[in-house]
């Protein structure tokens, strides 16, 4: 497991990074890789993730004046990024992606498998890809409020306190939301497995 004890950091950690000449370029260099990873974790493919990153940073540029420095800059950035990326994902999914798992199958009922991990046996890699798509589909079926807490907790490895700050909700709400999100995800996974 690749759990990370990630934290958006303390207030003022990135102080000065968002001010002064060339600040946006510095911000981009510092945070673009993180936002890119977040975009991929939100379900965007690499090229869509690039679009997502650009959208996030253009929005940051427009709204940088609204950052008051009360919380860590990265917390504020996470707020902007999560909203932008999930909106972007919804837009992309509506335009290009099949909505249901059944529509991912080709004419022979097979699931498309792209580029298995070179470190794995071919069959292992394919199984892993298949499972990955199944999990992605299950995650996509969750309501947004559940999806975002799971992404922030399970994939970004953030603490409840930080998630609460990012989403603007109470820590107790984060706890119960994560609990319900996991239950829903497990249920959706079971449904998809039964449907295959």
């Amino acid at each position, binding site marked *: 497991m690749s759990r990370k004890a990630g934290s958006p950091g303390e207030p003022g950690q990135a102080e000065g990074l968002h001010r002064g000449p060339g600040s946006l*370029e510095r911000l981009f*260099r510092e945070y673009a*890789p993180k936002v*890119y990873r977040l975009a991929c974790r939100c379900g965007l493919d690499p090229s869509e993730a*690039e679009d997502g990153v650009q959208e996030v940073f253009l929005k940051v540029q427009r709204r940088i004046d609204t950052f008051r420095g009360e919380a860590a800059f990265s917390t504020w950035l996470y707020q902007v990024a999560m909203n932008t990326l999930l909106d972007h994902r919804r837009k992309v999914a509506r335009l290009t992606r099949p909505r249901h798992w059944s529509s991912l199958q080709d004419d022979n009922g097979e699931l498309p498998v792209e580029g298995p991990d070179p470190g794995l046996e071919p069959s292992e890699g394919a199984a892993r890809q298949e499972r990955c798509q199944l*999990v992605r589909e299950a995650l996509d079926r969750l309501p947004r409020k559940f999806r975002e807490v799971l992404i922030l907790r399970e994939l970004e490895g953030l603490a409840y306190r930080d998630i609460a700050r990012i989403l603007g909700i109470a820590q107790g709400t984060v*706890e119960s939301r994560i609990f319900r999100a*996991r239950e829903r995800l*497990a249920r959706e996974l079971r449904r998809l497995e039964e449907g295959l």
Partner: protein
Amino acid sequence: MKNPSTPSFGDRFEDRPSSLRSEEAWNRQLHAWFDGEVSDWEADEIRSQLLQDPSYRTKLAELRNLRQDLDLLQAEGPDAATLDRMSRRFEAGLAREVRSLTRGLQLWRRAAAVLLLLSLTLFAADRALLPGTVQANQKEEIDRLYLELLQQAETSPSSPESPTSWRPPGPGPDSQPAASTEPSSSRSGRLSEQR
């Protein structure tokens, strides 16, 4: 599972039936413990619960499986080439934003200048030109029409039916013979002065 009647530290659903309340509260607590979000003494309680209750251990195993599944969605960071491409795209996007902002500002400036000019013109016209002209024209027109009427009255034969034979109220023509012999121009001039 913990006995439902036992009061639990994690019980936060007081308004629910106790059986449901305790199970849900314990499950929530297990999730929080799994995330490392409980205090030491809460962690001790969970551990002892895990040792006692096999169904609790099953739940923990399910949680681990779910986390492993979600770990499949972990993403690699962008490579140097991707980062470079993104950086260039971002700069281009910024430049586009600045250009459109500048264009927008220019449009606003032009619109504001036109509006200002229009307002000034209207203001000047309102204060200086239009009302004065209208009044002056009206006055001249009335004077001219009045003089025409007087001249018509002078030139036409006087008859009681004719509207042009009108005289100002007062004593009759017989009592003031000199008035009829007065030149019309001087009479109209006097009338103008009276008006």
